[in-house]
Structures are given as C-alpha cells and as structure tokens.
C-alpha cells in the first residue's frame, strides 16, 4: 500500500534508534523497522502513539499517495 513515512528522519531528530523507539511505542524493533521500510502499515493507535513521541502531527510522519498502477 502506498503509505510513505518519515520515521527514520523523526528518529534521527530525536536521536534514538529503532529499539529505543520500539520501547517508547510498546512494539518490537522489528516492527519499527518494518514500518520504516513500508512493509507494515501501523494501526491508528500506534500512529497516534508515534505522533505523541515525536510531538508532531500524523501528516508530518505519514503520507498517503495514490498508486498510479492501481
């Protein structure tokens, strides 16, 4: 699904690694890695948790774009 994210950039701004973000969000490092790579689309609950951690809006982290091939 065409969901793009800036999770890696947000993480760098905060100076934390995937494992630490996972701990803060209550998920595993692998899940954070899957979201960053666009392999897994997180639930609304997790998205809101992430916005709280980064103190930003959903749009700043996630962007939905229609796939032209679909």
């Amino acid at each position, binding site marked *: 699904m065409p969901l793009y994210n800036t999770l890696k950039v947000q993480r760098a701004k905060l100076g934390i690694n*995937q494992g630490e973000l996972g*701990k803060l969000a209550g998920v*595993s*490092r*692998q*899940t954070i*890695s899957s979201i960053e790579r666009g392999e897994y689309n*997180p*639930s609304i*609950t997790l998205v809101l948790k992430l916005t709280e951690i980064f103190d930003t809006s959903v749009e700043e982290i996630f962007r939905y774009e229609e796939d032209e091939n679909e």
Partner: protein
Amino acid sequence: MNKKTILKMALLMSLGGVVGAVVSIGLFFMTDGFGDVFSNIGNFIINVSPFLYPTLLITMFFPAVYLYMKGKKKLLESKKIDEDEMDILEKESGKYLDMSIAINGVYMLLNFLLLGATIQKGSDMYFIVLALFLFNCIISSGLEITIVRLIQKEDDRIKGDPTSFKLKEDDRIKGDPTSFKFHKDFVASLDEAEQHKVYKSGYESFQFSRTFTFFMILVSILFKLVLDTGALPVVLTCSIGLAQVISANVYNFRYANK
C-alpha cells in the same frame, strides 16, 4: 472471474479427473496383490522399528538442532551490529529457527506415525518401541522449549545469557512453553505487527489444511472401496474435517458478535 482463471480451473479439474480415473482403474485391477503388499510392508516396518527411531533421530532431529544453533548464532551476532545489517541477520536467523521448528514438528509427528505403525500388544519389542518413542518425544519437546526461550530471551528488551534464562514479569514476550496456556499468552504478548503475521499465517494454514483434509477423505473412501480398509479411516478423516468446519464457524460467530 476472467478467462485465464476459468481455463486454469478447467485444466486442473480435467487433470484431477484423469489422475483419479487412472488410479481407480489401476487399483481396481491390482486389488488382489495389494493386501499382501501392505501386510508385508507392515511386518517389515515392525521388524526394523528399533532401527527406524535412531534413523529418524539422525535424519531429522540432528538437522533441527544444527539449524537451531545456526539461527542462535546469527541472532546473537545481530545484536552487535548496526540497524540496517541487523535486519538482514535477524531475517536469516528467523529463517533458520523457523526451519528448525518445522523439522522438529515433522520429527514429532513421524514419531507418532512410527509408534502407531509399529506398536503391537504382546510383541517382544513393545517396551523398546515405547521407550524409543518417549525418548524422541522428550528431546523434541526440549528443543521446541529451547527455541521459544531463545526467542523470548533475545527480544529487544531483554539482555543476557539465554542459557540462564528465566521469564520475568516485565519481559515483553510472555508465555511459559511448558504450560498449556502458552500459545494464548505468547500471542497476547506480541505487538500488532507480529500478531498480524501470526493470524495471517494461521488463516492460510487453515485454508490449506481444510483442502488437504477433503483430499484425505476422498483417499480414505477410495481405499475403503478398493482395499477394504474399513470405515474407520473415513470416520477419522471426516472427524478432522468436521472439527475444522465447526471450530471455524464457532470462532467466526464469536468474533462477529463481539
């Protein structure tokens, strides 16, 4: 449904029909000799059963242990490197551990198959076969517990030596692998992405096993007709199918009304 799908289905059905017809005709003409062949194979398996258990141990359990050790090594290595490479090593490690669990599962099932095929009341080898079966079951369960504990221990939040592992209250992945409640506790403690994977693979394996059960029902009916194997195999395979259909509907109903 597009033309390609219809053509594919028609081709598969025709192929199934041809295979079924050939097998039926073949079995119909070979019925007389089959009784002896099956009984001879049965006797042979009983006679060599004390050797079959160690063979199973060498060909299945040892490779499963080897894969576990390889997976463990990769998992421990992955903790020492940066995040991008960590993903690659963790995937490799997961592949080895999954293969180890799968082979170990097949090993356990083959043990049961061997026990069912070889144990006979009053046989000289009754206790030997039973002891070998129990031994294989114990080591197989031991390996499964070890793999689960390694996964729990090597979760991001837990550090230390996996060999001295004891599940603590604050560990993320819960569940005691020796408990009957293990699967429930384990899945409940996974995060949403991990649960998604578990449910997806669970659904797909259910669909596969349902198709396979129907195939086995047909095989057991065919064997009853041609080889006179009796009604029991048909009843047993149908019971498995029934359990699958009923349980699927019960859970559907439960979740639809939640």
